[in-house]
């Protein structure tokens, strides 16, 4: 753990009196390695370590009884500040329906999440509508229909998919359907796509322009490594998103991607997906995430 690593670094410093800048640099180096091991992206690690060094050079560490512990405390605080800074709940539209658009790389967990989000909102008294706007992945429409059945939420699937139908058109029609059938929430599942795929990014932007989502959520796999930054920045630039959902947190990936994504876009992580079942869904806990990254 980071705590162990720093305690070791400081063992050699006992009885030295004041910490020198070199001592601080060695400590920050340990922190940098720990964060990289946890898959935090390099540019975010740099900025984060600079901030920690700044604080570590101050009196809160030089006058501390246990400087190692004080530095760990600083790291933890800074992590939680970033991860939890703008944490908030889902935003609902003033006038229903609230439109939630799901976006992300292939295989991140969007379709599964659509079901969980729908189930969660239904249990809170809402009338969600799931929308099958992934018309490209083989049987994505079937998958969403089954997912919808499992949480007893209707699925709007006017097109069969497997290459047939236009997602922009489906999204537009879904909005009308929700207004007609009095669904107060619309959750739109979309095809996974690479952030560098111009055509598909344009398509996603067109879906957004057609329905004006209240929340566009970037769905990110917790095991993603350095690519988290490219992905988050490009999705934000090309399409724009409001919040993040981190998935597959039931694994043992350290999840540094959480810090990377929030670090470079400033967008909050709203939810955590912790398994394949509809109930494996919870609010994001910044302090737990910080502990996991530093572990």
């Amino acid at each position, binding site marked *: 753990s980071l705590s162990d690593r720093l305690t070791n670094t400081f063992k050699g410093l006992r009885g030295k009196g004041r910490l020198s800048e070199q001592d601080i640099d060695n400590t920050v180096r340990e922190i940098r390695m720990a964060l*990289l091991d*946890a898959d935090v992206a390099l540019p975010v690690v740099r900025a984060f370590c600079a901030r920690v060094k700044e604080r570590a050079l101050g009196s809160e560490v030089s006058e501390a009884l246990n400087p190692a512990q004080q530095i760990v405390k600083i790291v933890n605080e800074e992590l939680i500040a970033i991860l939890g800074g703008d944490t908030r709940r889902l935003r609902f539209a003033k006038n229903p329906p609230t439109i939630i658009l799901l976006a992300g790389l292939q295989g991140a967990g969007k379709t599964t999440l659509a079901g969980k989000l729908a189930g969660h909102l239904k249990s809170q008294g809402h009338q969600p509508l799931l929308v099958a706007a992934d018309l490209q992945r083989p049987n*994505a429409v079937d998958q969403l229909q*089954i997912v919808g059945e499992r949480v007893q939420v209707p699925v709007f699937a006017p097109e069969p998919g*497997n290459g047939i139908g236009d997602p922009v058109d489906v999204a537009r029609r879904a909005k009308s359907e929700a207004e007609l059938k009095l669904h107060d929430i619309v959750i739109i599942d979309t095809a996974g796509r*690479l952030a560098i795929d111009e055509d598909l990014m344009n398509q996603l932007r067109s879906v957004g322009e057609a329905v004006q989502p209240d929340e566009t959520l970037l769905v990110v796999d917790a095991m993603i490594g*350095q*690519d988290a930054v490219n992905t988050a920045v490009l999705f934000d630039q090309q399409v724009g998103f409001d919040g993040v959902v981190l998935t597959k947190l039931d694994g043992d990936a350290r999840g540094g991607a959480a810090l990377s994504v929030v670090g470079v876009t400033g967008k909050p992580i709203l939810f955590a997906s912790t398994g394949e079942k509809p109930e494996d869904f919870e609010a994001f806990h910044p302090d737990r995430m910080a502990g996991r990254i530093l572990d």
Partner: protein
Amino acid sequence: LLSRDKLDDETWEEIEDTLLLADLGVPGTTELVERLRTRVKVEGVSDPERMRQILREELLTSVNPDMDRDLDVLRNGRDPGVVLVVGVNGTGKTTTTGKLARLLVAEDKDVVLGAADTFRAAASEQLQTWGDRVGVPVVRGPEGSDPASVAFDSVAAGIEGECDTVVVDTAGRLHTKVGLMDELGKVKRVIEKQAPVTEVLLVLDATTGQNGMTQARVFAEVVDITGIVLTKLDGTAKGGIVVSVQRELGVPVKLVGLGEGPDDLAVFEPETFVDAIID
């Protein structure tokens, strides 16, 4: 990389950054940089172009270009080749199974697919679509049925039909789930009651960070993987995690996924992989 005209601390930082950004990890990067420093000292290198050549050479060495990357997927005497496709959730197993079938069909081989993911919504439908697209039969079971029995049936069909290859797709599973890993071990054992599994392919997503190493270790322990498929390499991720996976487990990357279509599967080429990292 290394486009300036002198070699200094900034150069070393640039090299280190490039390797870390490719998901080579801290130990892998540190070790490679150490080797570079030694060579630079020993050979008295001062020009960035030569530095770049050395970096390319050392990175290529660490990807072990002489590893045997052959796929053992074809009929051997009385038994069809049997390929088991495994990995964590969402990495591209089902898609890779379809692409592999396409590759074999293009070489005039007879293939049967086994839809042994009996758990996830529309998993067998997805594989059926792939089977229809590339022109091979798919053996399926009822939803929620025992994956081992579907796997068994698909191999039986392959033997019966005197096919060249049976490719068995399995459900995504996190390596941390003991019950699911036990289930996978059982799928393999049940298949082997009829015919040996000739290839166990671990499908790794190129965007995966250091967790990829843990995934590979556990899957290797449970089902003895013989090859890695590195998918989604058509994105911006470099897939550098495979460097440590190959080194630690001695398992070669055999194939790479370069897209979502049936033809987007290629043989792993060390030089191409290295050039993508340093260019």
